[in-house]
């Protein structure tokens, strides 16, 4: 099938089997920031936004992505710069393999995700083997605070 979408704000066209995963499609197009981990929806390193929802791109079929507005980690500096900054400044990473997924997941958080407990539940499907999660949770809280400030400047 011919898949037409917007990826990171730009038009995107790819000739792919409808049953290929969005992950394969994106990586095949050189967007390798999105990682392949478990391929069964559990680890979250493949998280991307599809029409503003966080999805496991390893499970998401290319056919369903046709016509969608897709954002990957490569677009986060534009789409959610405060999240990227928060992860850099809070050192919310070690090896970095989970980082693209963590950042995209945090970028998808609504304002209802406020405290540490909310963040931990929201991110429970984004595994990290390195950090013990403390700095990731801090980065997420920091990003949420920055975004609240951006929406409603004090």
């Amino acid at each position, binding site marked *: 099938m011919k898949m037409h979408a917007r990826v990171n704000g730009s038009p995107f066209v790819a000739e792919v089997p409808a049953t290929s995963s969005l992950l394969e499609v994106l*990586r095949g197009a050189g*967007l*390798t*920031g*999105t*990682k*392949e*981990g*478990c*391929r*069964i929806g*559990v*680890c979250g*390193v493949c998280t991307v936004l599809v029409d503003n929802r966080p999805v496991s791109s390893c499970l998401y079929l290319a056919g369903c992505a046709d016509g969608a507005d897709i954002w*990957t*980690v*490569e677009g*986060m*500096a534009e789409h959610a710069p405060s999240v*990227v900054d928060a*992860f*850099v*400044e*809070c*050192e919310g*990473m*070690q*090896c*970095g*393999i*989970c*980082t*693209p997924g963590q*950042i995209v997941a945090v970028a998808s958080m609504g304002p209802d995700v406020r405290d*540490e*407990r909310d*963040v*931990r*539940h929201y*991110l*429970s*499907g*984004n*595994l*990290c*083997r*390195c*950090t*013990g*999660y*403390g*700095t*990731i*949770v801090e980065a997420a809280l920091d990003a949420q605070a920055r975004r609240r400030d951006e929406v409603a400047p004090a």
Partner: protein
Amino acid sequence: MTLAWPRVAGPRVDARDKATGATRYSADVEPEGALHAAVVRSTVPHAEVLAVDASAALAIRGVTAVVTAQDLERRFGDELCGRRVRDMPLLARDKVRFSGEGIAVVLATTRQVAEDAAALVVVEYRELTPVLDALAALGPGSPRVHEAPWRYDGAVVDQSHPPNLQSELVEGDPVAVDEVLGRAAHVVTRTYRTPSGHQGYLEPQCWTASPRPGGRVALLGTVKAPYRLREQTAKTLGLALEAVEIDPVPLGGDFGGKGGVVDPTLCAALALWANRPVRLALRAGEDMSATDARHPSVVEVSVGCDADGALLALRVDAVFDGGAYAAVKPIPSANLHGMAECALGYRLEAFSVRSAIAYTTTLPKGHMRAPGAPQAAFAIESALDELASAAGVSPVELRRRSVLSGGDRDAYGHVWDEARGAETLDAALEAADAAPRPEDRERPGRRRPVPSGWRRGRGVALYARPTAPPATTSLRLAPGDDGRLVVELPFPETGTGSHSVVRDELAAALGVDPENVEVRQVSTGLLPYDPGVGASRVTVGLTAAVHQLASRWWESGGTEAVTVETGSGTDRPALSYCAQVADVAVDPETGQVLVSSVVTAADVASVLRPRSHRMQIDGGTVMGYGFACLEDLLERDGQVWAPNLAELRLPTAADVPSLRTVLVEGGRGVGPANVKAVGELTNVPTAAAIANAVAEATGRRVRQLPLTAERVFWALHGETGGETGDEARDEARGEARNVARGVARGEEGPA
């Protein structure tokens, strides 16, 4: 915190690239025209391979070849492969020894085609009796996994050993232990078990090899010890060292894994064989069920104290399941250094450690964060609580009385000028009592308060680890094009922040802005040597090398490139203690264990990058928590039953306990930057601290990990009076000792 000199802790060198997806990892590299390799793997644990029928696979469009061991042998000879013991073929020859072992490789133009075709290769087996239990494997009458393991290059066993012995390690004096325990006021002897586990890195292993003119080959991939891999690959393929080049790329975590030499060497062989670039990328499930895993253990501990609760003697007899090949283990003994050092933390009149690793027809076992130490600490630190209860002293008192202080001689005879066991233990307890807010005592992700009927318990455990003097490494400093300085390193950034440490330290030593220092891993052709990432040696070795590099740079005028190669340091080693206090709540009706908090006190010297340092501590504790409560690869009947992350459950952000850390500062470290290693510290005592807390909460002792709700439930509700269900079925009690002892004497163990 005492800093040797002022440091700037700017963002990590790799932070922004990692946060924007720009960092390229092994799987992100795909050379033009590369063939994709998919491995046909054994589905049975032990069998002769009678025939491989690749006709259906070869009929698929896009498949270029199906390569077998014979094809490789014709080209490269029949050298086996291994880091220390060279006992593993690149592909199985005639016989498979574990389910998951590579038998053939499909090469195709896309990964999908290669994988689809691999599924069509038909292997005909004649099944042999599997060898599945490490204790039985070392006893008489067990089928042999290898005909004559003592003949392998690098073998650490001889013909007098049981034929399924991979390696053994003997420390201390068992006769003295018998004598001292004979006059101890209290002695306990208990057996503990731990399961097989995966390192749990989220980046599956992947390698790409490209042929180079003149029969050379370049390899890039998930490799944490490039210079060592180069030696192994060259040796196995009959190439000159210079003919193999390992190119730089960061790692998505290793935790002791990614040191294997067989798969990357296979990838290099395929590229040379096909004369095309070849990419061998493992799927996560394949990585978990066909590469290497943590050693399962059966550990018997005997420990005794006098009437006042002062420790007298410790005996540890361990039998580990080493799996089908010893090839992944790197240390000279081909055993586990965590076992060698396991009696380090306490003053003892006598000790004995015997560790036997058996060949079985299961997944080969390799290294995972502080190899051997978590298994040993779970056993020893659990047994100490059992001894405390027998002696009628508190577990804390028992430990405090026998930990090392400065000037003490340890059980091995080494006198430490600094040893801060009591300070570290007390710091942990004090912090546990003084939680700043009540919620810090609760798991931060928990939605509901803990119901009142649950039983609370607290457990303590200790671990002591030496920081060795700096090991050999090499660095190069050169002026860059843009006025910056470029420092070249021989090993990958695995996530620990080591490249940032180099930048910061060098900038500080040269008095320049860290922004003006660029850090680059370079390929093996460009620097003299490095032993690779592992054994917590990186920060120590690096900081020493950075200092030499800086002085060399000044000496030479600061304009020309300089290279340093450091020898192994001669500094005295330093000792770090880690004490953990776990608070748990147990649902008596279900056995569910909720670990509310783990407080860690770590005995440190200088801390170079506080957040990176903290993540080593937190990440280690979370890994310890996973080992304690969740993780089990479930190797049964020679198959891995949990070969994916849905089954092998790693801790999530919502599951982890509240983590608090106190640093016992002001310690004397190693090397010019005065550091103590921290990467393999906090994951070690966690399981025992939690098990001790569960025992306090329930009055029942579970001696097998993971501490699942079900195990605790049967301990509480089974008919076996406090033993776990598994333990009740355990006919092997006392057997670990007999087997380990028999092995040490050069006998076969009992039936």
